[in-house]
């Protein structure tokens, strides 16, 4: 039995449109059988500023089309006319919830191409910042996922918890949202006095709330009803659709950039890659919940293992005149949504020739989402989309 059929309309699916000779769907809107519904860009059930154009028959989606570009600023173009150092504040804007991955990838690209080696302490601090970013990203996601189902309570809590992490970010980096902490050659500052204790206090509070969220959200009859068996990603889709991160791990894949291509200080940290076989919305949510707990553990480990003092910035050449020999490189890191990559081409000048951002949402939110929404209930569209954890700015940049 098909997994789709098991939990939804008991196989009563009459809404499939016929196919035309060329393979496209035969949808005649003037037949009044189908209507078009736009979800977004101004819509509470959409992640960020994007839109999904749904052709529905009754309650069922027969065709979905992702529309992006509402947040397009042309980063890749803008980067070409800024010096290498000047791009550091720019790149973090590509992905608002987790800017640090952009900073890390960008800086690492430049360091690779220019042959700058980063001090050990800086690697620890970078790992700390990345894990904190992941923590707040997941917290925000959990709130959003619960909120999409009308469960505002969890959304309220998790946003509060995220604010706690943002407070620590503010203390560490001087910014709440855009940290611009990771620069070419290292990081911008050491951890402040008393940071560790405050961070641990926050982590304790987050853990306390997480226990409640476990009870309230994951042991919830309605939540389970709404999510189990829905929005399934077949394991064989992983490579054709370029699925990465928790979405792929929930489908049984074990790929995690942190383990496979260790960067920062991950090789010295002790953690497990969580995986699941169910591959439905619930499995993905629960996987993220587990990863969140792993993050808390990782942050504790980092704080314990981080050496006191030490250089946090390499001796870099004058940034005004920094020119990088011609070459190209690709750097990836594991963000909350999966493999986040930067492809950089330099041409020997002081400006990058081309920077290409490979955001995981690029494949998740367009090709995969369009595929997954077919035959979904119209009320589940937001839910499926949120479960993919897509983020529009990294699609269009």
């Amino acid at each position, binding site marked *: 039995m098909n997994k789709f059929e098991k939990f939804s309309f008991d196989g009563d699916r009459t809404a499939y449109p016929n196919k035309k000779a060329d393979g496209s769907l035969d949808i005649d809107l003037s037949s009044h059988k189908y209507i078009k519904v736009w979800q977004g860009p101004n819509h509470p059930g959409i992640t960020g500023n994007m839109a999904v154009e749904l052709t529905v028959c009754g309650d069922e989606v027969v065709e979905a089309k992702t529309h992006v570009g509402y947040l397009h600023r042309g980063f890749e173009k803008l980067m070409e006319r800024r010096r290498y150092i*000047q791009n*550091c504040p720019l790149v973090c804007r590509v992905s608002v919830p987790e800017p640090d991955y952009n900073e890390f990838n960008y800086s690492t690209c430049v360091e690779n191409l220019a042959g700058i080696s980063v001090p050990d302490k800086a690697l620890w601090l970078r790992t700390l910042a990345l894990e904190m970013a992941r923590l707040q990203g997941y917290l925000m996601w959990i709130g959003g996922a619960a909120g999409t189902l009308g469960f505002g309570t969890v959304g309220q809590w998790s946003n509060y918890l995220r604010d706690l992490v943002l407070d620590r970010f*503010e203390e560490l980096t001087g910014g709440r949202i*855009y940290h611009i902490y990771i620069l070419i050659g290292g990081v911008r500052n050491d951890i402040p006095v008393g940071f560790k204790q405050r961070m641990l206090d926050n982590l304790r509070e987050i853990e306390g709330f997480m226990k409640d969220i476990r009870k309230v959200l994951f042991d919830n009859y309605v939540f389970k009803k709404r999510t189990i068996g829905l929005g399934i990603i077949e394991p064989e889709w992983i490579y054709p659709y370029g699925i990465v991160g928790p979405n792929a791990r929930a489908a049984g894949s074990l790929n995690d950039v942190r383990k496979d291509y260790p960067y920062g200080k991950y090789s010295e940290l002790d953690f497990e890659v969580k995986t699941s076989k169910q591959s439905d919305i619930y499995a993905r949510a629960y996987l993220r919940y587990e990863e969140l707990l792993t993050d808390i553990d990782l942050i504790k480990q980092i704080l314990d293992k981080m050496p006191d003092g030490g250089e946090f910035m390499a001796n870099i050449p004058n940034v005004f005149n920094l020119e990088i020999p011609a070459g190209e490189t690709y750097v990836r890191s594991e963000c909350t949504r999966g493999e986040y990559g930067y492809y950089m081409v330099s041409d020997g000048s002081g400006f990058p020739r081309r920077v290409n951002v490979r955001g995981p949402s690029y494949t998740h939110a367009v090709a995969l989402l369009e595929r997954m929404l077919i035959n979904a209930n119209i009320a589940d569209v937001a839910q499926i989309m949120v479960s993919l954890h897509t983020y529009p700015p990294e699609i269009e940049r």
Partner: protein
Amino acid sequence: MGIIKDIVSPFAVWKHFFKEPVTIKDPLNRIAAPRYRGFHQNDISQCIGCGTCEAICENEAIDLVAVAQTKNGDSGLRPRVDYGRCCWCALCVDVCTTGSLKLSNAYTWVDTDGDNFRFTPGIDLKPWDSLKDGYTKAKGLELYPLERMPMQHLHAHQRDNSFIEIMKGYSKEEAMAEADRCVSCGICVAACPAHMGIPEYIKAIREDNLEKGLQIMYQTNPLVEICGRICTHKCETVCSVGHRGEPLSIRWLKRYIADQVPATDYYRVLNQDKVEKNSRKVAIVGAGPAGLSAAYYLSKLGYQITIFEKLAQAGGMMRYGIPEYRLPYDQLDKDINYILSLGVEINYNTTIGTNVTMDELHANFDIVYVATGLHEGRSTRIPGTEHANVYQAIELLRKITENKPIEVAEKIVVIGGGNVAMDITRSLARLQKQKYGKVQTIATSLETEDIMPADREEVIEAREEGAIINPGWGPREIKILNNKIQGLKVVQCISVFDENKRFNPKFDESVENFFEADMIVESIGQGMNLSFLTEKYAEQLEKDSRGRILVDTLTYQSSLPWLFFGGDIIEGPDVIHSVANGHKAAKGIDNYLNSIQK
């Protein structure tokens, strides 16, 4: 069972109903973290308007606006921030050369008019100006190297008995690394008397286009080899990088360019535009830096130049005043020969008044440019200075250059704290080392060490070479016994300048000291000798109250229109000033001649 658990357990939310809300009571007055990147503050008195903040700003949010009276090393500009552009990345704080710019942790600014979001921090007063917390550059974060690239040089034991040049010059890698430190602010350009295009030629080094660098340098200075070695580098004093670190070694970079382009290439590199020769003739008296500089630029303008030089070789004080270990003669000749190769005629061993008269010059040339320099030593006029073993530094240096024998005594005292004093001290120390195998030279000056006019590195190197620098003493008397100098009696000098910054030394007569010496060298300054002008012309020249010749500050034209003055006798003593006023005089001469011809 699972279903019942799933239905019951969500009611755990109600636990939180009984807990205190976590809301911040007064969010409007919440203070941000101590490091928060909020609104800009600028310490106006520290800021020099170097514009690195403007250069780093990727959003073009920072603009430099004129606010203050320009002073030395301060462009008179201050950054204005446009909060319609700013992204609070604080890169401007990280690159600020003086550390004057910082971000406070204030973050609330609400306005109904979008045009109001532009302000000049520190000048437009804002409520957050007094905030202490905020983002400042962390210790250990530098976006450009603060340490100077050291130059290979001879160690004290290798150099203290010879006149081989000490500084070896930069290799290509070193020069590139040093040039890389430049932040291209351009503050140095104004400080340089010749206003050389310093950031541009440093950029040429980075681009490894040394010929272009040479062209840039020759636009304002035709004595680059020389200036690359012995310039007083006013540029480095004001260098913006020097505010928090070591200034760029601009002088050495200049030398690097000049060194790397072989003399044979000079003509090809620098003479790319054809010069039309005209029939106007200019006589230049003195082949020192001012004379050579004027000769170069005048000949570039097509004039026919004749230089009259009293001594046997060209170069003036550069050759006869500066020891060879600082400025080797072959390098000096490189610059001079290039100028001469442009068709400049030079008459050596020609003294005005003796071999040729001013009247003849006036008759035969359109213009006479006088740049005879300061070649007369000044005396302290304390008792004993008339003794034969009391010398003037300038004479001794000339003798050393001319390879004339000098009676080097075993114990020498040099009076003076300037660069010339250091030159003669170190030259004599070398001669002592050659002759006696050890150095017993003491240099003493009125000024204490912190205000000594000599360059810091000169003092350090002199000490490395074994000379004793003991400043802060006022000479009182040269003790002579049996017509043989015993030494110099000095008293402690408390202050050199009075409150009006005028030279007015005060002494503490109770603290005395005595430097033993067989030979005493005075090096407290030089004077000029303008006797060749003869009374006929001297009378016609306007002079100021202290007897200095008055010239137009831009054209260096004196009250006799055909007579121009320049060099140390007007400004200085200093090579770069001479070069600069030689250049200006050349332009002045050209303008003047063009104007009278019309």
